[in-house]
């Protein structure tokens, strides 16, 4: 069984990003970049399936600038067998990413595609679902448990108010939630081994995808700072202020 697992290069979760002063974007020059935590969980799940003997090959893919190959290497150091980088300096958005993943799925015919449910930079939570629609593969999103047996995958999903288990025919898409597993870290020998694992590079054009952004960022600004409170003399003044100043009643 072949697994395709996608990893996104994002600002490290420890970094507190700030908007640029001109409000065009967040300032991420020279900040630490890492694999999106949900994608790390996806890699871990794939590696566990391989360790259990369920999977035979894991392909790790990332899309983004040339430096995104670092995240592919990390996935290789964690246990993926080979890597793919789709190199593009565009601001890659979920639809473009899903289209490119579709092209790779057609090329590689994986039995399972495991993705993070969302990335911590855009918080879109769209790519897995869009890929499902584009490929007509069944999807089990927000997975907290994944079991593969008899050509099917059963996915326990975290939903409002509890857990839901879906049983999907393969090939299928799984997107990971936080409680699915606890990812390992790369040991130093595996970091060295990862250097020698193969990695293919494509461009969006190679895959026949127009990666031009469809959604435009108008402005980025920090949330308004909380102002100091005031004391009111009595209930009447409070009601008056709520009504006439805050206009909430």
């Amino acid at each position: 069984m072949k697994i395709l697992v996608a990893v996104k290069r994002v600002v490290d979760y420890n970094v507190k990003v700030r908007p640029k002063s001109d409000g065009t974007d967040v300032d991420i020059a020279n900040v630490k970049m890492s694999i999106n935590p949900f994608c790390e969980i996806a890699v871990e799940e794939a590696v566990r399936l391989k360790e259990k003997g369920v999977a035979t090959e894991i392909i790790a893919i990332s899309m983004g600038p040339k430096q995104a190959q670092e995240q592919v290497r990390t996935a290789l150091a964690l246990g993926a067998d080979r890597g793919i980088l789709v190199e593009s300096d565009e601001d890659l958005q979920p639809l473009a990413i899903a289209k490119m993943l579709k092209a790779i799925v057609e090329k590689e015919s994986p039995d399972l595609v495991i993705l993070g449910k969302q990335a911590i930079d855009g918080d879109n939570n769209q790519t897995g679902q869009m890929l499902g629609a584009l490929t007509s593969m069944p999807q089990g999103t927000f997975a907290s448990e994944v079991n593969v047996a008899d050509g099917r995958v059963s996915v326990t999903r975290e939903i409002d108010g509890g857990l839901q288990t879906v049983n999907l025919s393969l090939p299928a898409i799984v997107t990971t939630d936080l409680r699915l597993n606890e990812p390992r870290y790369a040991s130093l020998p595996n970091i060295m081994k990862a250097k020698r694992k193969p990695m293919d590079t494509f461009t969006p054009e190679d895959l026949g995808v127009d990666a031009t952004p469809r959604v435009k960022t108008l402005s980025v600004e920090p949330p308004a700072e909380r102002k100091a409170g005031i004391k009111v003399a009595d209930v009447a003044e409070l009601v008056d202020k709520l009504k006439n100043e805050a206009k909430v009643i």
Partner: protein
Amino acid sequence: MTTRLLNDRDIEFMLYEFLDTENLLKRSRYQEHSREVFNATLDTAKVIAEKYFAEHNAKGDANEPTFDGEKVHQIPETKEAWDAFAEAGFLAAHYDFEDEGMQMPEIILRASMAYFTAANVATSAYPFLSLGVANLIHSFASEEHKARFLPPMKDGRFSGTMALTEPGQGSALADIKTYAEPAKDGTYRIFGQKMFISGGDQSITSNILHMVLAKIKGAPAGVKGISLFICPKVLVNEDGSLGERNDVALAGLLHKMGYRNTTSTVLSFGENGGAVGYLVGEPHKGLSYMFQMMNEARIGVGMGAALLGYQGFNYSLDYARERPQGRLPSTRDPESKQISIIQHADVRRMLLAQKSYVEGGMAMCLYASSLFEDSQTGETEEIRKEAITLLDLITPMVKSWPSAYGLKANELAIQVLGGSGYIREYPVEQYYRDNRLNPIHEGTDAIHGLDLLGRKVTMDNGAGYKLFNKALATTIAEAREQSSLAEFAEQLESALNTLNTVTSTLLNKLPEGIDEGMANATIYLDLFGRVFASWIWLKQAMTATQGLAKADVQENDRNFYQGKLQANRYYFEWELPHIETQANLLMSHNLTTFEMQDAWF
């Protein structure tokens, strides 16, 4: 509020801008590596440090190791952390590929270690010591002993200690009483007691290799009669399996102010017929071998001190940004919103002082590691020799300056938090207690002052001292070319002249009376350290200036570089000038303390 570990941007700055670590990739030893591999290594270090070390830093402090007469008990997280460190491959990382290592450059190993130390200095002491012991065995032990003892050290089954100090002797090693008698089988039997042995017993590994300094019976007096032995806690059979307990007993644990999860032990050797010891190298040369480990440990101690300071700085900075208290002197309205304390000038003074100490100290130690790297893998014989010569000279400052000012930074962190800093609910008081050890172990300030003035400055006809002068002169000339830094170039030149005048004055006076001449050596050490630290800061400022000049510099980078420039300015304007007072004392051969008499107290 958790404490973030160090500052990734600053580590990147130090490794790839202030130092040229990427250039190592040109050396044949590192051709298999890449910056990606270095970064992945640092990432793994950070993940393990956060997950397995930082989590029990306070717990290990609150639950110090105990001894029930049979065994040492420690919180279980200690062993989990050790195992994670070993399993990730850090104990073997710097060895050759053929020895199942990764040929990791020294500086990447040390920068990785920085995360562990910052997370939990006490638990990190175990791998720290073991790395040093393995290096010592690797450098000087026989092939047979290497084959028997190194594999279990690399995979974490054995740990190591350095057993130098005795109940009667700490700094004065010439007078140690532990002795060794040759046995018929070619090994030795060791008798004596050692004290303050860190990691001398623990609940982590199945065996411990003590590197013991002892005198073979009949050896010459003084340091020239000291030999080095491997003395395992449990004897190791030739096939590597564990045999009987050796005659090494834990006499007791010592109860420390800080670094509590590192056991500090009193060990008795040979109470039942003699502890089996294996001679390392030749007889009577033990101290020179041990100096390899001590020099490595000295850079490590300086680094640890800077990092504890760094963690206190991080915590107090975050606190100062979040804690509202008071108003500016210019604000009259008592109903106005309180400001965060970072808006008070005096709080910024305390933060900036910390920044100059901890970032200066870390840069100093990483620079020392880069010299060690050059001494091993530099392209030419000349580069290798110059690197080790300069490193020898600066080691006393690399150990002492961060130890003094990292601790000072922790004191300021407590002050920034005020009452909260003094209570155990906040981590900064522990950093202070932990850091208080660093000016003491691996040679006290006084020992390093004597070493510097009495030995290092004149060693090899002053070769190291001349290299130091040359290195500073180069920086001064370069900095002068940049208008924004010219004033600091002038100040550093003047400080270097002061150092040179003081040095020659003191050296000229020594023949008249060495006791008087060496009396103020600790002050000389501090003066030298300040000049050295100013140089390190000016080099950082030059790098920051280059960074700011880049066309595409972004806002957060601009702030980062501005911070470096302001810390540089602080150090030159607020700290460096103290050398004038020190120089006056030293050059007038002030004997106030020397002439004070016991009875007058």
